C-alpha cells in the first residue's frame, strides 16, 4: 500500500476530510469541513511526533496480554430473547428492525 504520509507538518485537505467522513459515516455540513481540517491537522501534527522514533525491528503490541484465539466449545447456548433484542429499536416490524431503504435514488 502506497504510503501517503506527508513528509512535513500534517496538512489535511478538504478532500481528505470528506473521504474520512464518508468512511466514518459522519455527515458534515460544508462550513464544518475547513475548521475540521485545521483541527485534525493540529492533532495529527502533534501525534506525528512519533515519526521521530526509530522502530526498526520492533513488534507492534496490539494488546498487552499474551492471549491468542480464545475459544469456547461450539455448543448452542440461549440467546437474548427477541423482545429484549428489539426493546431499544427505533422502529420495528414483525420481529425485525425496520430500516430505511438500502439504495439511494
Amino acid at each position: 500500500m502506497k504510503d501517503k504520509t506527508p513528509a512535513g507538518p500534517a496538512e489535511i485537505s478538504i478532500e481528505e476530510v470528506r473521504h474520512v467522513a464518508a468512511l466514518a459515516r459522519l455527515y458534515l455540513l460544508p462550513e464544518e469541513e475547513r475548521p475540521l481540517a485545521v483541527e485534525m491537522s493540529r492533532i495529527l501534527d502533534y501525534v506525528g511526533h512519533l515519526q521521530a522514533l526509530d522502530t526498526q525491528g520492533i513488534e507492534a503490541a496490539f494488546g498487552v496480554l499474551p492471549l491468542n484465539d480464545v475459544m469456547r466449545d461450539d455448543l448452542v447456548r440461549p440467546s437474548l430473547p427477541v423482545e429484549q433484542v428489539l426493546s431499544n429499536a427505533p422502529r420495528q416490524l414483525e420481529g425485525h428492525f425496520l430500516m430505511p431503504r438500502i439504495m439511494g435514488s
Partner: protein
Amino acid sequence: MTLYDLTATELAGLLQSRRVSATEVARACLERAEEWEPTLHAFLHLDPADILRRAREADARLATGQAPALCGIPVAIKDNLCVPGQPATCGSKMLEHFIPPYAATVIERLQDQGAVIFGKTNLDEFAMGSSTENSAFGPTRNPWDPKRVPGGSSGGSAAAVAAGLAPLALGSDTGGSIRQPAAFCGVSGLKPTYGRVSRYGLVAFASSLDQIGPLARDARDLALLMQAISGHDPRDSTSADLAVPDFSLAQTPQRVSATLGIPRECFGPGLDARVKEKVMDAARDLESLGYRLEEVSLPHLEYALPAYYIIAPAEASSNLARYDGARYGYRSSQGQDVEEMSSHTRREGFGPEVRRRIMIGTYALSAGYYDAYYLKAQKVRTLIKGDFDRAFGSCDLLLMPATPTPAFGLGEKAQDPLEMYLSDIYTVAINLAGLPGLALPCGFADALPLGLQLIGRPFREDALLQAAHHYQQHTSFHRERPVLAKGAGKEI
C-alpha cells in the same frame, strides 16, 4: 460522625453487627444527594424507589447473619456500565433513551454480594474526555470548588464519593479516567491490570485500553470493591484466567522491604511546583515506612500521549461504528436511505469531541496512513512497555504524580482539545502498558486536593493496595472532606 462520612469498611462493620440498617444508610446517602445534586450534578439517573428496594433486600440478607461484606453498601455506577432496567446513556444523546437488556458482569457480581446499586453517574461522552465537560447532559462540578471540574471521564463517580453521596463507586479508565478524577476530587481510585476485571457490559471505547475500576475514600474500601469485581469471565475473551488474590488489607505487615522507583521523566517541566512538592513529600513518607527509593528512567514516556491519541481514537472509531441508528439508540429523521440516515444519526447523536476522535481514528487506520500512524503507535507501545519492564526489574512499585496540576476551572481547557489531552500526561502510559495504577490524595494546594500515583507490576494490585494503605495509616489527606457552600454554583 454521620453515616455519609464513614468509609464502606466502617459501614460494613455497622451493618454486619446490625447497629445500622441498609435502609438507614441508603436514606442518608439519598438525603445527602438531594442536598448536593443541584450544585454537583454527579448523577444522570438516581431512582430512590429502586435504591430503597435494594436496601430492603440487603437488610433481609443481613438479618440472616450470612451476608457478604459488601451487603447493604451503596455503590454509584458510571453511566457506561449496563444495569438492566436503568438507562446507560454514556453521557451521549446517542444513547439518551437506551435501557440495557442485560447486566454487566461487574454489576452481576455486585448484586450477588448484596451491594446496593446507587444510581448512574455522569461522564464525558463515551468516556472521551478529562473533565466531564463533554457530557451531553451538562458537567459535574468539583465538590471542593464548584467552579472547577471534577476531572474525567469518571467525574460523576469521583464527585459522588468525595461528597459522600455514596461510599463507593465504579468508574472506567482508558487513559486516566479513574485516576485523574480521583486525584482532582481527593479520593482514591484504582485502574486494575488490563484483564483483571471483565469488560463485559462496559460500553467499549478502546478495547485494548479500557478497564473498570473502583473509586473510594481509601485503600481498604478499594480492596473491598476489587475483591467483588475481579476475576476471569468467559464472556470477556480479554479477561485473564488468573486466580484473584486476597486483596483484603487485614494482614498488612507494619514494615515492608520494597523498592519504590521514581521515574525522572515524570518530574520535569509542565509539572505544577505544588504537586511536585507534595509528591516528593509522599516519597519521603513512604521511605520512612520502609520503601527504598530508587531513581529510574522511562525514556519513551514523552511518546505515550501521541501514541495514545492515535491508538485510542482508532479503536474508538471501530467501537463506535455500531451507533448507526439501526438497532438501538438515536435515529435521525433525515436521509433518503440507510447510509444517509446513519450519517445524519451520527452527526446529530455524537458530540464534537466524539466526532473529532472518530475522524482522527478513521484517518489513522485508513489506507495509506495505517503504517505511519496506527502501526507506528503500536510499535511505540512496545517500547513504552519495555521501559516499564526494565524499571520493574529493580523496583516493586513506581511513584509519580497523578496529574500535572490540581483541578482546573470549568471552561478553562474546553476550547482546545490538545490542551485537554495534556492533563493525561501521567496516566496514559499506564494504560498502554496494561499495568495497574492507583491514585490517592497526598496533599492540598489552595484547598484543592492533589493526588499521587502508584504503579504496580502486572496483576499485583495487592502490592499497590498495601502501599496505599500503609501511606494512609500514616497520613490523613484521605480523611479531609469538602464543605459545600449552600447555593454555590447556581450563579455560574
